[in-house]
């Protein structure tokens, strides 16, 4: 069984890996670092300060954009997670004949280029004269959030197997009780991490929000993009850093909840 080839011993692997990591994370590091810049340039370091965070926080437009982002992300997450949970149960526990095609259908938003989704959504909404303001954005976000939310939920359902649900049925639990007393409690870590994933994806979305949103529904990423066009100050960095921190925190929570556990 012993193989002589060990990819970990490839010459130059260490430096190469280090280079890639630098390439990936240096921009992020610079961005975060300059959000603490005391000066007003994003390229010249002038000492440490929290002032740009204070300025960003005091900016009424940023506040509004942040609020929009939160409303959209929270609503889309709630809707997408509920739909994804039932869809996952249908795919994993329902007739296997339909599981394949439907799973592909649900995963499609992950594969279709976002710009295509954005354009078609925009055209579709205007052709049916749907002008619900921020709700338009919520609907658009919900659709692609379902795909993300479903991944951890489905994985957990599959990992659980149907043994415990069968045991509950055997112990006189009607279908609704099986769901409430066994499936849901055991599935909850998957549901929470699915929700967090959906929230992060929605919060960070730019293309769809920029296309489908209008003047009153600018989200934070869209606003930050606008700021850059008006000239970059560390205020942009500060706003981005906050967005980054929230995303990382939530992604960390999702990871933690879905960590593999050594239970039988």
């Amino acid at each position, binding site marked *: 069984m012993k193989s002589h080839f060990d990819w970990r011993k490839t010459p130059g692997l260490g430096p190469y890996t280090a280079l890639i990591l630098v390439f990936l994370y240096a921009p992020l590091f610079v961005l975060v670092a300059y959000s603490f810049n005391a000066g007003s340039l994003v390229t010249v370091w002038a000492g440490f300060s929290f002032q740009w965070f204070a300025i960003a926080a005091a900016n009424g437009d940023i506040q509004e954009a942040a609020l929009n982002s939160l409303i959209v992300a929270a609503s889309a997450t709630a809707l997408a997670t509920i739909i994804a949970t039932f869809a996952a149960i249908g795919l994993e526990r329902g007739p296997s004949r339909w599981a394949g095609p439907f799973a592909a259908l649900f995963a499609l938003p992950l594969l279709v280029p976002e710009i295509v989704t954005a354009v078609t959504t925009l055209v579709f909404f205007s052709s049916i004269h749907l002008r619900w303001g921020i709700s338009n954005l919520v609907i658009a976000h919900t659709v692609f959030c379902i795909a993300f939310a479903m991944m951890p939920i489905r994985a957990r359902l599959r990992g659980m197997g149907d043994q*415990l649900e*069968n045991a509950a049925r055997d*112990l006189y*639990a*009607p279908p609704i009780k099986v769901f409430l007393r066994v499936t849901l409690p055991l599935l909850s870590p998957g549901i929470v991490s699915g929700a967090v994933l959906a929230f992060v994806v929605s919060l960070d979305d730019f293309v769809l929000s920029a296309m489908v949103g209008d003047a009153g529904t600018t989200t934070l990423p869209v606003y930050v993009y606008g700021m850059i066009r008006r000239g970059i100050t560390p205020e942009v960095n500060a706003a981005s850093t906050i967005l980054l921190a929230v995303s990382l925190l939530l992604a960390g929570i999702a990871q933690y909840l879905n960590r593999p556990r050594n*239970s039988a």
Partner: protein
Amino acid sequence: MASGTDGSGQVDSILELSKITLRFGATTALDDVNINIRAGEFFTLLGPSGCGKTSLLRLLAGLQIPTSGHIRLDGQDITGVPPHRRPVNTVFQSYALFPHLTVARNVAFGLEMLRWQAAAIQKRIPEVLSLVGLSSYGERRTEQLSGGQQQRVALARALAPRPRVLLLDEPMSALDLKLRKETQQELKRLHREAGITFVLVTHDQEEALTLSDRIAVMKDGRVRQIGSPEVIYREPSDTFVADFIGEANLIQASALGRAGVAGLVMVRPEDIAIAPESDAARVRGTISDMRFLGGTVELTVVTDAGNAIRTRSAGAAAVLNHGQAVGRRVGLVWPDRAERVLEG
């Protein structure tokens, strides 16, 4: 109570399976199975891996619907009744304890679903936990228990609602030998005390012989024989059963010089005695192997016709000179009642 002939014990049968067939696509898991299980008996489904034991148990629990055939419980057709409406509980092969509930809450689950009064549930929990010797474990989480303890929780949980029938799917296969023996005795005691019909699935013939009132031997989705352990052991219906239960010598009738008898003659190793070659031995041959098994000695004798016959006895060592057995010529004898002629 349950020895003697089997067959249509219509009078006191609690579970009747008639003409059960179960197919998964092209695979036939169960093929025309007919079994009557009597009220209060310890019934065992025995057979090699993949013969359909678990499938049959799932049908009884209602987790699976047969492709055709009928299941009756207390005379009522329950073939399509969902599991939560059947007074039948299962001890699953992997125990399937709810990891998010304590031991006591696991035990209470079935009772809560049946809407027992809270007071009755609180009374029943310690009752069943003490029945399986886990009185002080009520507040533990199931993950903190050993395999043997988890198995007993699964038993307690299934016994708590006082089902009409308790189904057990290889409940002891995950336990080590010593624990398995102890648990077998426990099961026997629980069966006596609970007065419930037990249906056990196992592929361990010794376990089946020790525990059961009656055994159904299965192969490839079919029932080959149903009977008490004595009947199954003494009067196997075919060579598969003879070979699967205990050890059997299967000798061509022609090799024994039986004119007009077709098929195989079965003799158990312990029924065969070593005799001097000159005697009126049934067959003669040469000892090719000798194994000392503690209480008994196992000899393999190759007959002049070329059959290898195994014998096992406590007395053989005395007949032979110690250690000098291999290579000696001997005769083999056995009483008429020890042999059984089986279809080839």
